């Protein structure tokens, strides 16, 4: 599995997902909880708008000087004895990790939650090498056990599953014999994972923010599993998207605060870790070998374009948690590991319009996402921009739509034509009208009236009424 999670058409996916009433209930419930918690956390901090602007500024500054900070990060980590590899593509990143696995003759690999490793499809590559790859984030662990069910949310990946479904997975795959009580399920997973941690050859984590000034990799988690993944195995590999970097710990603090509040409404998560290279002679724990894989995979192609601001993203999912479209279609509909508004902007940039050109249209442009984003990515504008590119630059609009838009353009920009059209509207629509209502409209109205009524055009046009009114009352 890589970024693309299936081959179905967007429409088919949506229709299938919308039948999943459990998923929709779970998503609606989670949205309400997470939205409220985020708003409360923002209010408790105070001056939220200023913090957002500050976050935006940090992200923009870092992206504008990305080469500089990546160089600084790389040099500082190497000084601490770490290895750094710049991977231009997913394949290069996977090959590099594979080479370490081979060199170490590693069999058991433990992973902390990481979206970028999902994006490059690292797990399946390592599994093909004969490795036992185990996800240790509870949500990811459940999905992996369930025959690699893809994540449907970037922070809470198993959001679409209920406790009964999880119990069934555990019963089938782990010989679980207890109830569907979350505590019992979690305890069982914990016991299983403990054994795995002790036997792991290599630990792989993602990276929330790398810190250039110290050469560190910052991780933000609640379960503490990332700490086990990074401390117990003798070899440590961190995989990061090339934009996930801050200049110093000062900016790290600001962004972590925005991230935890926006993602889960917490002031801080239970664990915030900064890993800085392999263990030194004076240290008693940590890996003896440390690798940082910095993944481009299409990101540098976004830099310097009208879409650059999407790289400001800190993967908090606040936009997903307020999206009224995601609310009904769930994460799997997007066919990408990056769902929701951020996914609808990012996925076509990384994966191309051939596979993902519907995504920018899966939005009403209601701007709830833009409003929620803690680093002020103008998500609804970027979705709109995508549509412009798809229609104007790529010429991919369907012919019927092109004709309709052209006709509207001609009609609306000519005063006599528009006037004639509005005068005729009432009589043209008369055969379709009953009780001032059109319930089965022709042409462009067909799709509208499939599910809703349409008001019949007024017999008296506003412009006529206005003229009459002016005549009667005298011009103002």
């Amino acid at each position, binding site marked *: 599995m890589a970024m693309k999670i299936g081959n179905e058409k967007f429409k088919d996916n949506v229709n299938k997902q919308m039948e999943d009433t459990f998923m929709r209930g779970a998503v609606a419930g989670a949205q309400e909880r997470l939205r409220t918690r985020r708003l409360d956390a923002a209010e408790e901090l105070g001056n939220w708008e200023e913090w957002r602007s500050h976050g935006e500024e940090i992200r923009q500054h870092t992206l504008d000087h990305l080469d500089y900070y990546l160089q600084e990060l790389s040099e500082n980590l190497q000084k601490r004895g770490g290895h750094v590899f710049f991977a231009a593509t997913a394949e290069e990143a996977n090959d590099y990790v594979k080479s370490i696995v081979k060199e170490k003759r590693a069999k058991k690999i433990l992973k902390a939650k990481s979206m970028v490793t999902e994006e490059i499809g690292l797990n399946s590559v390592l599994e093909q090498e004969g490795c036992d790859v185990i996800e240790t984030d509870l949500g990811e662990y459940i999905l992996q056990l369930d025959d690699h069910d893809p994540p449907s949310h970037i922070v809470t990946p198993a959001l679409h599953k209920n406790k009964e479904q999880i119990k069934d997975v555990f019963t089938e795959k782990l010989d679980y014999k207890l109830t569907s009580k979350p505590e019992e399920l979690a305890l069982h997973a914990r016991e299983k994972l403990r054994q795995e941690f002790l036997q792991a050859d290599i630990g792989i984590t993602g990276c929330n923010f790398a810190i250039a000034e110290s050469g560190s990799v910052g991780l933000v988690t609640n379960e503490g599993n990332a700490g086990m993944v990074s401390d117990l195995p003798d070899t440590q590999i961190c995989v990061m998207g090339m934009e996930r970097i801050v200049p110093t710990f000062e900016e790290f603090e600001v962004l972590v605060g925005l991230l935890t509040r926006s993602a889960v409404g917490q002031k801080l998560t239970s664990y915030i870790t900064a890993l800085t290279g392999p263990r030194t002679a004076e240290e008693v724990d940590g890996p003896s070998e440390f690798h940082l894989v910095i993944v481009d995979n299409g990101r540098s192609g976004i830099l310097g374009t009208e879409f650059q601001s999407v790289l400001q993203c800190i993967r908090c999912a606040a936009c997903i948690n307020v999206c*009224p479209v995601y*609310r*009904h279609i769930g994460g799997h509909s997007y066919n990408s590991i990056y769902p929701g508004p951020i996914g609808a902007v990012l996925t076509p940039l990384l994966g191309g319009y051939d596979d993902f050109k519907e995504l920018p249209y899966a939005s009403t442009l*209601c701007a709830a996402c833009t409003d929620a984003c803690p680093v002020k990515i103008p998500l609804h504008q970027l979705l709109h921009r995508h549509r412009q590119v798809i229609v104007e630059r790529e010429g991919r609009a369907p012919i019927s739509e092109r004709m309709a838009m052209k006709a509207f353009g001609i009609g609306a920009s000519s005063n006599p034509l528009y006037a004639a059209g509005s005068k005729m509207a009432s009589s043209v629509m008369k055969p379709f009208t009953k009780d001032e209502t059109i319930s089965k409209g022709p042409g462009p109205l067909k799709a509208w009236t499939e599910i809703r009524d349409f008001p019949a055009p007024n017999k008296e046009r506003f412009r006529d009424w206005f003229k009459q009114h002016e005549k009667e009352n005298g011009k103002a």
Partner: protein
Amino acid sequence: MIATFEDAEVIVTPSGSCATMFKDYQHVFQDDPEWRPRAERLADKTYELTEFIVDVLGIEDVGAKLEGIATYHPSCHMTRLLGVKDAPMKLLSHVEGLEMQPLPNAQNCCGFGGTFSVKMGNISEQMVDEKVDSVTETKASYLIGADGGCLMNIGGRMQRRGKPVKVMHIAEVLNSR
């Protein structure tokens, strides 16, 4: 549009998304030395109706009268992009006889979204259905809004589903005596 309206003293539109678009022309023409200043002048004197009544005229009670329970749908572009949130509520709170009930999940879009409503009709249907259900939950006799597109969408679905709720533009409510 700019040429038609630019000579007016002020421009008042009974739709938050239209007002938003009027204010957006300056960005559309940002590289055009002739039209940009004209678009900026247009933006400066454009107001959404309730914003104009409350913030410019300084009036909160227009002397309207309407008996019954109502709920208000805050349209997305009006609240988020234009930033007009309180003006309609202030005006409605002074309508004699009108009891306002909060709309559950009011912040969620009704599923109109222009071409979205037909291009992604199946998703739009689910969104507007949730909105209709929320309106029904309030037991309101009137659904009030300040944006024609949203009202046409919610109203059209409500009518199709046979819900006896009357959809009113806020201007109609304020004009009730």
